[in-house]
């Protein structure tokens, strides 16, 4: 799942520098516009947000105004983000787009964008505007992972063998539906720009990643400070989860402050779990934090078992669990989990992955005579 910039891609970016402030508004006059491909706007942009005008009821111009406000505010917030860009599509009054989600995601894919934003605007009986924003991570950013080597205690007649493992916690929640916002829709901007900085920081390592990750932490931190949990638990949970990923990456990029950053990562991951216990992408991040912080094996295992319970068709979660069970010396349980993962892959029509084969090989070596 990891996607990082290749050397070639970085070279292209160097040749095609993108202005720090890169925003374009495209007025769509032809109703068939989205049915055909168009030239990519800001082709060198590394992190692009595509926004499609928020849908309002006929005759209500609030949708257009809010779209423009978000465009301007986001553009101002990515001023320091080299390679950041926003492309906004506005639609003339009286013209309908059949499905804003489909169009937003389609055009974002064509535009090689990272994120797509759209939504719905209504005015309630008291005349107050309500905005329901939708965000799709069209190209998911890299998640986090923990690599480890352990020498489990072995049973009689077995030679000791080192278990090497990786707990992978990719970004799997690709869609965020914000609760309807009353009043100032600009509360969304720190979330959106915080994610944009995360995309940038997560594609880099070491000192190159630090400034982007710190900016991401500041903006997402501002979002969780501004938006009450009771107003939008789902989105605040997502913001905490990305903050956990940010601090995990900061811990790796800056060993001197690793301990404090891991502590912050753990706090944010716990908040994400408390706010949305149904989000299957949270427990693997908690397991990564626990593993990197030197937490006890049963704690790491419990987080991974939670991930399997929430997402029983996710074979990555099952492989994570099998490896940790092996590392704890529970070879028979690990083998059972691994076989279950194989069955789940098979009934879903998926072939056995390389990861699966590697885990099976390790188990065979460890469990052999």
């Amino acid at each position, binding site marked *: 799942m990891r996607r990082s910039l290749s050397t070639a891609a970085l070279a292209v970016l160097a040749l095609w520098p993108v202005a720090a402030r890169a925003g374009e508004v495209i007025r769509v006059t032809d109703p068939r516009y989205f049915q055909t491909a168009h030239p990519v706007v800001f082709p060198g942009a590394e992190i692009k947000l595509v926004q499609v005008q928020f*849908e309002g009821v006929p005759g209500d111009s609030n949708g257009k105004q809010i779209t423009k406000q978000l465009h301007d505010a986001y553009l101002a917030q990515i001023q320091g983000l080299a390679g950041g860009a926003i492309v906004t599509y506005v639609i003339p009054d009286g013209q309908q787009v059949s499905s804003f*989600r489909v169009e937003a995601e389609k055009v974002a894919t064509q535009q090689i964008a990272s994120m797509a934003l759209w939504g719905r605007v*209504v005015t309630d009986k008291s005349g107050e505007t309500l905005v329901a924003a939708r965000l799709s991570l069209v190209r998911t950013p890299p998640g986090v992972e923990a690599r480890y080597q352990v020498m489990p205690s072995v049973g009689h007649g077995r030679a000791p063998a080192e278990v090497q493992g990786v707990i992978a916690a990719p970004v799997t929640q690709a*869609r965020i539906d914000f609760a309807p916002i009353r009043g100032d829709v600009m509360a969304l901007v720190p979330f959106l720009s915080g994610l944009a900085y995360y995309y940038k920081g997560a594609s880099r390592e070491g000192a190159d990643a630090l400034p982007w990750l710190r900016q991401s932490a500041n903006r997402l931190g501002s979002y969780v400070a501004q938006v009450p949990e009771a107003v939008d638990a789902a989105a605040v949970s997502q913001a905490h989860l990305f903050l956990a990923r940010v601090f995990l990456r900061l811990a790796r990029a800056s060993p001197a402050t690793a301990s404090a950053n891991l502590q912050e990562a753990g706090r944010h991951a716990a908040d994400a779990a408390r706010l949305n216990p149904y*989000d*299957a992408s949270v427990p693997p991040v908690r397991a990564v934090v626990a593993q990197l912080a030197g937490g006890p094996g049963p704690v790491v295992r419990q987080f991974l078992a939670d991930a399997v319970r929430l997402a029983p*068709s996710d074979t990555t979660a099952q492989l994570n669990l099998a490896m940790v069970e092996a590392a704890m010396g529970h070879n028979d349980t690990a083998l059972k989990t691994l076989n279950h993962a194989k069955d789940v892959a098979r*009934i879903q029509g998926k072939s056995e992955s390389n990861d699966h084969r590697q885990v099976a090989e390790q188990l065979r070596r460890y469990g052999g005579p």
Partner: protein
Amino acid sequence: VRRLIVSQLFTIGSDAGSDPAAHGFVHMLQSIISEDLPPSIPPPLVFPIDFAEQASPWKDVTQQNFSDVLQRLASFEIIWGDRDAEKKLARTYLGIPTGTLADQVVPLGDLPLESDPRRDIEIFGDGYYRLLGHVALAEVLQTVREAEAADADDDRKRLILLAREQLREAQARLINWHKDEVLNRNLFDAGTQILARASARAGLDP
């Protein structure tokens, strides 16, 4: 194609505004359902029927006959409304055959009948999320039914895994409204119990 049947509500009198309002209501429902359901749940086609105009055994849909309507139309979710001509609104309901664990009839809210519902309806109130949550639950339950009707063991397991994914995605997406009494009782509690039992019957860990 799975269908969400909508009993035509905008038939009070013969005022000229009733057709655009009816169109607006169906458009709004289709828009919400196709854009806001989780990706693992294919959106049903919103299918309006004016029962009073059709040669059908029913003049209207009610709490008493909705399951008969669904059975005869080979569908598993229907919206209808009890019209209040004096107040010019309809008290709307969603009916889904759920068995005994979950509510079969869910109140959605009042729908004004004399204006464009996209403008006046409180689509962001409780009714909107109940609509979304219970349409999701109806789809999950239908996936479970298809699983239990499957001949091959692998097909049954695959569909149960899909149903669990659909339910969890719906629960995660609607977590902001988990304290709504009706959503909590059905989507969160009953949905989880139903899937745990179905998983056990299919030979999967609950």
